[in-house]
């Protein structure tokens, strides 16, 4: 699945800020961490601000903070700010034919799974899953250090 650039930047920003709730990060900080365009990210951050997901503090040392509820905001909530991930089934050339409809059924099935997946993963769940994976990898890399409790 390929997300648009703005969507991916929006997810990076939200996840980076939510992972560091005690820090204020500027667009330049986040852009540098992900190797992405600072200008493009600044625009994405404004969109996130309008949606109430990030706050910006003005002045020297000002930056952005995540201001949503990480336990309830889902990946789909963020994605939907930037793009509509449902394919436009039922419209377009050839859609109103037997083959067009049969094809749309398959595309609709894939869309449905994608939406249900993004809609059930909260920001907190994604960060938690990332930390678990890191811990498991660390345990696998250094089995002697793994304490049995």
């Amino acid at each position, binding site marked *: 699945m390929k997300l648009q650039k703005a969507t991916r930047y929006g997810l990076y920003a939200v996840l980076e800020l939510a992972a560091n709730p005690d820090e204020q990060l500027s667009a330049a900080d986040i852009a540098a961490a992900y190797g992405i365009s600072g200008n493009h990210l600044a625009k994405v951050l404004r969109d996130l601000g309008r949606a109430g997901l990030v706050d910006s503090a003005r002045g020297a040392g000002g930056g952005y903070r995540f201001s949503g509820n990480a336990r309830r905001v889902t990946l789909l909530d963020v994605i939907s700010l930037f793009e509509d991930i449902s394919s436009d089934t039922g419209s377009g050339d050839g859609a109103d034919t037997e083959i067009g409809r049969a094809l749309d059924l398959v595309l609709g099935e894939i869309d449905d*799974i994608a939406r*249900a997946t993004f*809609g*059930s*993963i909260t920001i907190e*769940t994604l960060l938690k899953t990332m930390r*678990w994976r890191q811990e498991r990898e660390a345990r696998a890399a250094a089995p002697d250090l793994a304490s049995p409790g």
Partner: protein
Amino acid sequence: MTDDTTLLANDNATRHATGDGEADVLVRRATANDLPLVIELDGDNTGLHKPDYWGETFHETERHPGQHFLIAESASSDHEFLGFIVGEVRAWEFGSRPCGWILTIGVVHERRVAGVGSALFDAICERFAADGVKTVRTMLARHDQLNMSFFRSQGMMAGSFIELEKPID
């Protein structure tokens, strides 16, 4: 959320700290006395009242190792009923190596979002691990946002199997 688990002597009951100042949860094997509350909670969750099914499930889990019917109750002196979870180890179904299946879970409405579901999940995973399996699995309706969010929050992701179906009328 469950950050502390201590094995207790009583029938492998486990105590789970739910964090955030919530009371501890005790997870233990179900007894026949728990069935009325399980039937009522399941009836609320699914809209179906099925006492026979729960009676049978209880007797099956009593008889077979690898089948688990667990109850969560408050660890305080009132032992308030908080919820239940049922699961079993299944081997070689669909060509899959033995793994633990969670068949159903339920937490009483007034005690939700306080770590009880997580305590039940952790407790059944411990029992599956003791049974020797390395994977836990469940099946959910795609649009069941609540259960999807819950199981995802436990670190579960789509596995390598996919459910397919077709009407046969």
